[in-house]
């Protein structure tokens, strides 16, 4: 029941709309099935399966909106919910920023890779087999594994009284693994996220984490300061997402964004970072397929956010776009940053002195004015000298802004698909070599 086909979803949403007496009515309908295994200390700790659906009915009279939800879809339940949303709308305060629902939209073709039925319907045995492969690495290498594997199948749909209809199905498999040495002196990490479980190689990823763990024992303390760093994609994404997630036009126009200019106006069109930086989103890219529509029903299409270091687009809510007389623009879904052709190993080879960073952790904003963030390295930090990894180093706390970081760009490697350990969103990000990255203190944590 949890994953409805387009026709099944459409039929129920049409029924809901047929009961509407409001000026406008919109239905959002979604559902998912997911299963997971979590393990630690070389053994399963928890696992589970969850199935859920939800229909959200929004009714509007003028600028007054009422919203209700239901998860029972017989005629009486749907009609009752529609009536209730209308009653609520009549009682609601008027919202001067209310925007009427969108009319019919033209969406690009749904990427066929967005949904893989076998991934959506993985069995407990399939999940256990994938985890077993990972646990076997731990046993053979005498390391301790802690990991998480989750598969999800879901759908979301939207229909309104102005004729808009949108539907997508999604599948997802997510895996992350931390391997630690029994003396707790070494730790390594790897993570990936895909639509198709055939792309997920838990064995290969666990071996990478194991290699990092074994290689990171006897870490030396070196002085904090400014260093050349190589950020692996899993490390770089957690800083970059705070940059491309902050390209909001309204904040910039109102003067409360790193994109606001002294004296008024925004930095749209300005070259803000190194000219080799190109960041865009494209739902049709087969390497990172994403939804063809945004949460408010706007079509998602290819958008250049930063081109040759210049801020090319900001995202505009429908209200703010109307106020400013521009076209509305949803925020990016599935971000791609262009890079070069070299591997992480190539970046290491070209580094005289530097630090390789596997993962960044506990990223928090310190100052929104400069997009300054703090956080720490984790699970595999190594000193590089004359093109080779020389020894593991203790972890650092950093205080750095992604804007400053992208101005100190030395080199980019080949982009890889990765997933953020903070937001759990995926992106295609190159490994980055950055000079003068600010480490402000040392951490004894392993």
């Amino acid at each position, binding site marked *: 029941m949890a994953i409805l086909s387009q026709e099944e979803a459409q039929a129920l949403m049409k029924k809901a709309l047929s009961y509407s007496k409001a000026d406008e009515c919109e239905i959002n309908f979604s559902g998912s099935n997911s299963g997971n295994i979590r393990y630690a200390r070389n053994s399963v700790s928890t696992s589970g399966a969850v199935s859920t659906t939800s229909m959200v009915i929004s009714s509007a009279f003028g600028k007054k909106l009422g919203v209700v939800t239901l998860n029972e879809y017989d005629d009486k339940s749907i009609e009752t919910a529609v009536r209730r949303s209308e009653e609520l709308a009549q009682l609601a305060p008027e919202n001067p920023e209310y925007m009427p629902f969108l009319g019919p939209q033209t969406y690009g073709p749904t990427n066929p890779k967005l949904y893989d039925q076998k991934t959506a319907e993985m069995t407990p045995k399939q999940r256990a087999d994938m985890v*077993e492969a990972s646990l076997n690495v731990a046993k053979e290498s005498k390391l301790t594994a802690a990991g998480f594997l989750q598969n999800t199948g879901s759908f979301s749909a939207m229909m309104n009284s102005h004729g808009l209809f949108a539907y997508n199905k999604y599948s997802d498999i997510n895996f992350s693994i931390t391997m630690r040495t029994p003396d707790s002196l070494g730790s390594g990490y790897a993570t990936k996220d895909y639509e198709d479980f055939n792309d997920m190689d838990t064995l290969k990823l666990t071996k990478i984490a194991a290699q990092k763990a074994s290689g990171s024992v006897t870490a030396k303390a070196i002085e904090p300061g400014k260093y050349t760093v190589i950020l692996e994609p899993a490390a770089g994404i957690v800083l970059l997402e705070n940059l491309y997630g902050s390209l909001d036009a309204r904040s910039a126009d109102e003067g409360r964004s790193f994109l606001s200019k002294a004296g008024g106006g925004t930095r749209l069109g300005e070259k803000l970072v190194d000219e080799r930086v190109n960041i865009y989103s494209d739902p049709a890219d087969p390497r990172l397929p994403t939804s063809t529509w945004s949460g408010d029903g706007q079509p998602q299409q290819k958008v250049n956010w930063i081109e040759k270091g210049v801020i090319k687009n900001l995202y505009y809510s429908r209200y703010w776009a109307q106020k400013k007389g521009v076209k509305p623009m949803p925020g990016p879904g599935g971000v791609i940053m262009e890079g070069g052709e070299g591997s992480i190993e190539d970046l290491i080879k070209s580094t005289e002195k530097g630090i390789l960073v596997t993962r960044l952790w506990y990223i928090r904003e310190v100052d*929104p004015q400069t997009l300054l963030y*703090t956080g*720490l390295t984790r699970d595999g930090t190594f000193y590089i000298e004359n093109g080779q990894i020389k020894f593991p180093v203790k972890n650092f706390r950093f205080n750095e802004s992604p804007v400053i970081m992208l101005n100190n760009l030395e080199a980019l490697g080949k982009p890889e698909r990765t997933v953020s350990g903070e937001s759990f969103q995926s992106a295609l990000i190159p490994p980055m070599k950055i000079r003068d990255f600010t480490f402000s*203190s040392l951490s004894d944590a392993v």
Partner: protein
Amino acid sequence: MKRKDFLYLTGMGFGGAMLSRIPVIGAPISQEAALQGGIDVALKKRMADVALNAARSKGATYTDVRIGRYLREFVVTRENKVQNVVNTESYGMGVRVLADGCWGFAATDRMDNDSIARAAADAVAIAKENARLQSEPVQLAPQKGYGEVSWKAPIEKNGFEVPIKDKVDLLLKVNDTAMKAGANYVTSIIFLVNEQKYFASTDGSYIDQDIHRIWPTFYATKIDQKSGKFITRNALSAPRGMGYEYLMPRDSDKIKGMPTMLYRDRYDMIEDAGLAGLQTGQKLAAKSVEPGKYDLILDPTNMWLTIHESVGHPSELDRVLGYEANFAGTSFLTLDKWKSGKFNFGSKNVNIVADKTQPGSLGAVGYDDEGVKCGKWDIIKDGTLVNYQTIRDQAHILGLNASQGCCYADSWNDVQFQRMPNISLQPGKAPLTPSDMIKNVEKGIYIIGDSSFSIDQQRYNFQFSGQLYYEVRNGKIVGMLNDVAYQSNTQEFWNSCSAVCDERDYRLGGSFFDGKGQPEQVSAVSHGSSTARFNGVNIINTARKI
């Protein structure tokens, strides 16, 4: 409700950018539906028994069932506009089983007998499949059944019964007051939670609980358009395990005589907003801090987060053992340190207790999410590590014959696991007020309110900021500072604790969104303290140019 969903519903996120891949927006309901009584307890017992019997028939040796109805209400305003009024409901059942010595879990929002029985069977099938990956069977501490019992949060006024108009009027007055006092932009929010939870297990417990939480907050921003600078002062409220009475201010709950008004068990949101409006201007004009070593005087509005991160998390036994190694991390408070009975966590002034019964706290319940009656115990005694936080399948590791009642799941569709109880610094025994404390400081910074926070994965190295920073020179506050963050190592920091004010200054802070676990779950927890002083802490300057 995950933190990112809260940010989305309150319009404080990244304009939806981070959520656009799968546009799921939660489950709003009407105000009227939120006021409807809970599910009939007899019906819940019948549904629970269906699950318990189904699991037993499939081979489970232990089963617990959680039926949850979770109500949430957000009222969000911005300047003179109502941005959002959302009531959400989440209702369903989670079934956890032990079969072949392994845990299994499944959840459903279809509450008919067939769906419930199917969820129970799925949980058993998962447990049996995973048992081959298990290195040793789960050991569950014994727990007596309590029969049919109930617990209700001792609230005075149910926030869901207060008309939306009253909440909107309050928030619009908050915004107006802050703007008249100098702020250019204000977002204000009232966030209400009611967890109606029913727990049943094969131990013979049928526990019905009704839990309430409230979080009123605002964000006031001032912009100097000429320089392009902007600064925000957030509300100094604490989220609380209280009803709407928290927003009915009483003079007796105000801590006066400090540079801003501070609040104990009732919060004057309008007064705080007016002060915030003034202080945004003062913050814009404040001088940038000179980095170096300072004595820090930390108000409970700042202290709570430092306690949470540097004491609450490292004393979680699941982290100590390695269960969180892949996500939230492990802990420097390893078992050998506890076994020694001598591990010097902090100075003699540091006494920290765990308490899941503290009235008005976010973590207060009668029973945890595996049917264990809640209590209070020491974690740090006179500066020494004496205990951890445990659940039923961990108790044997500490040689305990019962759980400490620290199990929680943030929804019926999430599996329960170890979460921290309220963890609080005990007040000093000698009479001491914050004013007295400041008089004894030669070079220091008095910090009020919480802001940026980050700590490493074993809870050693941390960096915290605040809302208001006051420079202290030779026993007097001499002005306001900006660009301040303090960095320390947990053990060094708590050993530098040179004084804690007495119980007259004791207040609760807390979080609605303490994240942990995979899939990530949040829990709400309070941390109490009186103002405390820490000598010689490293201050960094966070100003940058881009």
